[in-house]
Every structure is written in structure tokens, then in C-alpha cells.
């Protein structure tokens, strides 16, 4: 075999991330997406990859409370950020109300889009933008569910929004 000469010029950076409440330093190559960092390097495989191109929403996580597609951003760009992934939603074994509502409304089938749908749901509730049924449907349309659980996902949001309005 020829000598190994060709190395891509990819540097490694050390960044600090707070993931699900725990601050940690990670060494990350600059070409690694935030999604791949989670899935392949930190074994946080709850965040899913459905396209790697920002077209499906399976990789949705909460970055400083806002929902983002983690496949569309490089990990190195987020030094100091606070991330919440699906693994970080339950507290002391108690499910987040949105997680429980997904179970109760059967808002998934295969479960592959589900972490993204749940993070997106929480992100949308945080945004406070969805007022009507049509709002919910529109603002959740970045998360594809090929199993077609949409009607039940919408019920989770309707319920959550009603609850918030009653507060």
C-alpha cells in the first residue's frame, strides 16, 4: 500500500457544552455535525438521523430552549451552548408531560421521528406562537412522521396549549 499521505486538513477543537444539565468538555473535529457528535461520539442516540439535510426534523433538539435541526449545524459552532436532547427531558424517572402525552395519545408508531417531534412540540410551546389548530399543523410541519401519527401529535399540542391558557 502507498504511504498514507493524504490527510484532510481537519482540526480538532475543544468545546464546552452543557448537555441535559451536565457541563462537559468535548474534543470535536470541525467537520462533525452536532447530530453526529451526539449520536456517534457521545452515544446519545435518542436524537435521530432521517436525512442529514434539514429535510425531516428527526434530529430536532433544544438549543438554549429553541428547537433546531442538529444535522444542519457543526458541533464546533456551539461552544458554551446548552442542549437538551430527548434523553434529558425526564426528571428523576418522571416523564416530561409531553412525553407522557405522546404515550397516552399514541402519537407515534415506529418511534423514529418521536424524539424530534417531542423536542419540536416543547420548542413550539416555548415559542408560544401556536394559537389555532392550523397554527399547530403548520408549525409542526418541519417534522415528518412517515407512520402518519400527525392527528395524535396535534392532540398533544392542543391539550398542552389549552393547559397553558388555563394557567
Amino acid at each position: 500500500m502507498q504511504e498514507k499521505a493524504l490527510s484532510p486538513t481537519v482540526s480538532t477543537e475543544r468545546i464546552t457544552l452543557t448537555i441535559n444539565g451536565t457541563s462537559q468538555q468535548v474534543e470535536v473535529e470541525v467537520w462533525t455535525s452536532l447530530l453526529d457528535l451526539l449520536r456517534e461520539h457521545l452515544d446519545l442516540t435518542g436524537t435521530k438521523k432521517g436525512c442529514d439535510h434539514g429535510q425531516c426534523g428527526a434530529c430536532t433538539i433544544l438549543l438554549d430552549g429553541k428547537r433546531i435541526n442538529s444535522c444542519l449545524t457543526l458541533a464546533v459552532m456551539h461552544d458554551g451552548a446548552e442542549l437538551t436532547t430527548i434523553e434529558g427531558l425526564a426528571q428523576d424517572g418522571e416523564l416530561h408531560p409531553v412525553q407522557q402525552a405522546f404515550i397516552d395519545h399514541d402519537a407515534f408508531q415506529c418511534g423514529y421521528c418521536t424524539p424530534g417531534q417531542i423536542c419540536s412540540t416543547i420548542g413550539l410551546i416555548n415559542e408560544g406562537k401556536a394559537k389555532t389548530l392550523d397554527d399547530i399543523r403548520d408549525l409542526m410541519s418541519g417534522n415528518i412522521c412517515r407512520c402518519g401519527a400527525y392527528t395524535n401529535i396535534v392532540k398533544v399540542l392542543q391539550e398542552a396549549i389549552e393547559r397553558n391558557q388555563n394557567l
Partner: protein
Amino acid sequence: MVTKQIGKPQNRVDGRDKVTGRARYAAEFSATDLAYGVVVSSAIAKGKIKEMDTSEALRVEGVLDIFTSENRPKLASYDSSFQDEDAPPGSPFRPLFNRDILFNMQPIALVVAETYELARYAASLVKVEYETEEHVTNFEAERTNAYEPEEYKSTPPPDPWGKPETALKEAEHRISEVYSHPSQHHNPMEMHASTAIWEGDGRITVYDKIQGVLNSQEYIMGVFGLAKEDVRVLSPFVGGAFGSGLRPQYQLFMAVMATLELKRSVRVVLTRPQMFSFGHRPKTVQQLSLGASADGTLEAVVHHAFAETSRFEDYSEDVIIWPGVLYKCENVKLSHKLVGLDVYTPLDMRAPGGTTGIFALECAIDELSYKVGMDPVEFRLKNYSVKDQNVNKPFSSKELQECYRQGAELFGWKNRNPQPRSMREGHNLIGWGVANGAWEATQKPSGAKAVLTKEGKLTVSSATADIGTGTYTIMSQIAAECMGLPIENVEFKLGDSSLPQSPLEGGSWTASTVGSAVKLVCEKLGEKLLELAQESDDSPFKEVSIEEVEFTDGQMRLKEDTSVAIPLTQLLKENQKDSVQVEAESKPADEQENYSPYSHSVVFVEVNVDEDLGTIKVTRVVSAVAGGRILNPKTAWSQILGGVVWGIGMALEEYSVMDHQYGRFINHDLAEYHVPVNADVHDVEVIFVDEEDQIVNPLGVKGLGEIGIVSVAPAIANAVYHATGKRVRDLPITLDKVM
């Protein structure tokens, strides 16, 4: 059967794993020293690889190896070694077998590296020179060469009956039209992936995205010459499949090959564009001629289907059997021909054949009802079938009339003005359409195992799959019901090749097939427990037969005198047993042979069509299903809902566009291949009508995976006609076609 569990809207038993991210899919199992494989895809559709230069890629630090047809390990060469449980007749594709290119995006190399990013980068450095041959991907152009395959994968077309041609000519009302849909791709959200783990000594464990672990295991044994005990395949969670996971796909081949060669664990995940490179619903064109008498009796059906296949396998599906199933008609002629193209072999996609054939038939029937001047529901009911004329057998049960009654009522069908373009709201034209459908309710042989421990925990298992269908949940319910245990005490295991044999998870037969095996193994467990009780001479169960006992509230007790009872935990402890284990194999009963078992459905749809823009919105859907006994209304509802969403996709959106210049599906990603999103789905109501069926299988269930989709696309097409007065017979119904 006392029903404490069956029929209950139980939450999914795997729900917690799925909402917390704990459920792991094929690409998510870790291994020490895991290497990553990235597949290089062919850029041409037909020809040969003249030269492949991997030198630059190999010089990248961290690249472990690159596998091509030139340096691949020795493989089996017979077709039979590559043929899997779902293989159509023909010669299966053999990855990296030689330099021949049979279809665009054919896998031609695997780059394996220390990290995913490195493998992906190195794959971009592989240079390929081709010797291009002219490909044929144009269905219309090739249709003149359509042929009848020597062997059908599907039911061969039934012989004609009656005098179809004469009856058609003499019919008072006639329609003769062509209906078509393009190729469509499954696109489960999880991309196909395999993680092959090197266990040492030539043994591997593989996590694969597959609808039947035994199929993958057999494939690996056949292709790589491994012994059964050296390969274990697991697939505990599958991120959707809809048929795409019926056959072992090439990422499995690649991961296993690299693992065996490198003696190191390897993961291969396909990209979304590569998800368009291994099987799809075949483009199908159907010519349908129907004739009816003045009073609306269906007199003649002539149905010819032309469907796409590859050059190397004769794929066919049940497109033309539906007139014989759905309508009573004395004069019928059917044919099904294949059009061979330079594409990968098509692959069963949710309700294969049914979705296609029922779309054409139900649109044609609707057209004929207008010719006759009858309400589309009334016309269908007039020609209602009570037996399956293809095989001349009665249905095991058919509550379709009840579906019509309840569905029409909930939808408000009686308020419909039959005149097209007669209903509107502002600039929206409103249309109401209907269609009915059916799907076969099959039971296949299956094994199952049950283990009851002295702590009262029951584990039941079978090598089946749960692709989102609810298998884990409904099997747990059946077992809990049979043994009289709380569902929390029951665990169902699947997706492991070391478990008892079970067929591929597909065709809507899992509930009936595996469910029957679970029921049987629990009955055997019951018998064994009774025997155990009878071992002691002073047992109150000494002289009783199994028919005289029941299992309930964690006890075995006498039906006649329920005070004679023993907790199962106590029974095992008293007999010094840590656990009791039984296995069983269930088979369909001979009696089934005399009947034709089908589930049925009617779908009512409302669409809004913007008169100015041509945009179509499916505002209301009522799906009424006769699907036998419903094991779990909650997961069942989701199954039907999923089918409705798929029907909306098929009717209005899904279209894999073939670019004939390159012979490639050009819209191969989720931005360009449209599937329904949340905003495309509005009100959906599901009705399950009561249907008792003692014949179909011991549980009386019919399966729900496919029945939810079959009637949806034609109901939408019929609603679009009612709204606009335009018949669109070529799917998808996009705005340009209704303007």
C-alpha cells in the same frame, strides 16, 4: 374468552422506551473499535465499470479498506444463495459481484474508515470510469415489449369467466379508461442501516433494519457461507419500513462483508438518496373497461395491468384480483404484464397491488355509477359480492355493508348533492368521494415460546418484528389475557434470530400469525401448569381437565368453583420450579381452505379544491373498517390513521421522478419527494365495525396494516371529480392537473 386485556386501548408497552430515546435502532448499537462504512453509488444506469481508482482514497489516514468487485472476498455465486424469503422469481442482485452495472445508484464500493466523516470524505475521492450502455427506463416506450412472466410472484391472473367481451359490447353503459401511478418510494424515517459486531472466531452479531431477522440470518448464511450458530441477527426496533425491510438490503451485505474481512465491527448507514436505490412501488398502468345494465348491474369487467419490473427479477403484485373480490360480476377478464426496465427490482410497499388495483377499480366504478346515474354508494351496494369469484369461495366474514352504514352516517353522505361542482364555499370547490377496498387476512405458520417464572413473570417470544405496528403491545395483551396476568407481568420479545421461527412481518398477517402462536403457547403453558398441579396427590385439581380450569388474577382456578384456586407463583414454588417453559408451533386450520378471508373498508373523503389555484386539501376522512376482532383500539386506530396519511400521499404527492437521460430517480430526497406533513392531514375519523370471524384464525383478527390505505387514494380522486368535474386518472393529482 374473558377479555380483560384483548380489546383494551392499552398504551404501547414500548412507549416509554420510544419517548425517552432509549429504544435503539439498527445504527445505534455501539461496539468497541467500531469502524464506519460508506457506500459509493454508481453514476450510470447500465454498463460496466471500466476502471475504479481508489488509490487517493486509500491514502487518507484513517481509511481501513475499500471493497470493490475486484478485491471483495469470495462469495456464493448461485442465485439461490442470494434469494431471500421475499425474492421474486429471477436472479437477485449480488452486490460487488462483478463490474456490471444493472441500475443507477447501484452500490459499487464500500469505503471503511475509523470515523464516519473520514469514510464519507474518502468515498468522495473514489474515481470511477464507466463503459456506458444505453439504458431503458422509459416505461411508456418499453410497454410494447410487456410480457407475461413465466412465474408470477403474485397470484397468477385468474382465468376469465363468462363472456366478458360480448357482455361489454352489449352493456347499456360503458366506461373504458386508463389509470396510472408513478413509481413511489417507501422512505421510512429511519434510513436503512446495519451494525455488524465482530465477536471473534468468525462469529458475528448483526443489528439490522429488517422486517424479519430470520430472513437476514439466512441471507448471511447463504451469501457468506456462515453456520447458523455463527450469526445472530437482532432488530428490536425498526424505524418504519412499510415493506422496505422485507428483503435484506445491501447495507447488510456491506457491513457483514467488511466485518468478516476486517475482523472488526462495522456500521453501514445508507444516505437518504441511497434510500431510492433498492426497491419501490412499481409504476403501473391499468386499462379498465366496465359495463353495466340500465338498472346498474355490473355486467362486464376487463382489467389489464402493466407494471414495472427490473431486468433481473420478475416482480409482480396482486393488482388485478380486486374486481373478483369486491364486486359480483358474471363476465370478467384479467391480465397482468410486466415491463422490464433498467432499474432495481420493485419491492412490496404498503398494500402492494391492492393500493394500485383498488385505486383503478374504485375510480372506474365511480365513473360508471355516474354513467348509470346512481349514487356511488348505492351502485356499489347493488353489486356487492358475497363470495370471492377469483377462487369461488365464500368470505370467512364480510361486514362491509355495516361499514357503509356507519361510515355514511358519520360522514353525512346523505346531504351530498350528486352534481359535480355543486358544492362550494367561497372560492373553494367542495367534493365528496367514496371508495371501498379489501385486503387479504392471512394466517401463516409460526412458533412461540413462553417462560413463566416463580415470581410470576411471563416472557413470551417469537422472531417476529414490530415496525411500529404494535406487535410488542398486542402480543403482550394476548399473553396476559390467556394467562390471566396483569400486563405489567408480561414481556414479549421479538426481533432476535435465536427466538422461535416466525415469518416476515408484513402482509397484515402478523397479528393473526404470531398472535395465534402466542395464544397456542399460552394454552400449552396452561396445560403444563395443570399437570404440575396434578403431580401432588392431594391436589384439588387432580381429576380435572384443562377445559374445567381458568387462568385469572394470577391464579389457576376451577371454573365451577372459583374458590378452588392456586396462585401461579405458589404453584411453581410448591413444586420447586424456578420456571416453566413451553414452545409451540401454530398452523392455519384446514377449514380455512374453504373460505376466502379478507378485511374490508369504506372511506369517505371531503376535499377542498381552490378554484383559482388548484390546491387540494383533504379536509375530512371517515374510514370504516371491518377488520375482525380489534385487539387494541388505540394502536389499531393509529394503523388506520397511518394508512389514511399514506393514501393522501399517494393521491396527491408521491412521485419518484425518473430522469430518463440518466436513468435515475432524480428527486431522491425528502425535500423533493413529497410525503404528507402535519399540515396536509386534517380531520380523520376511524370506525371499526363489529365483525366476528371464527374461521380466519383462532383469535378472529384480520390485521390492519394495509386495509387502512387501499381505499383512500380512489376516494380522494373521486372527491376531486365531484368538486371539479375533472377526472384525474394519473396520480398524483397535482394542481396542474385540476386547473
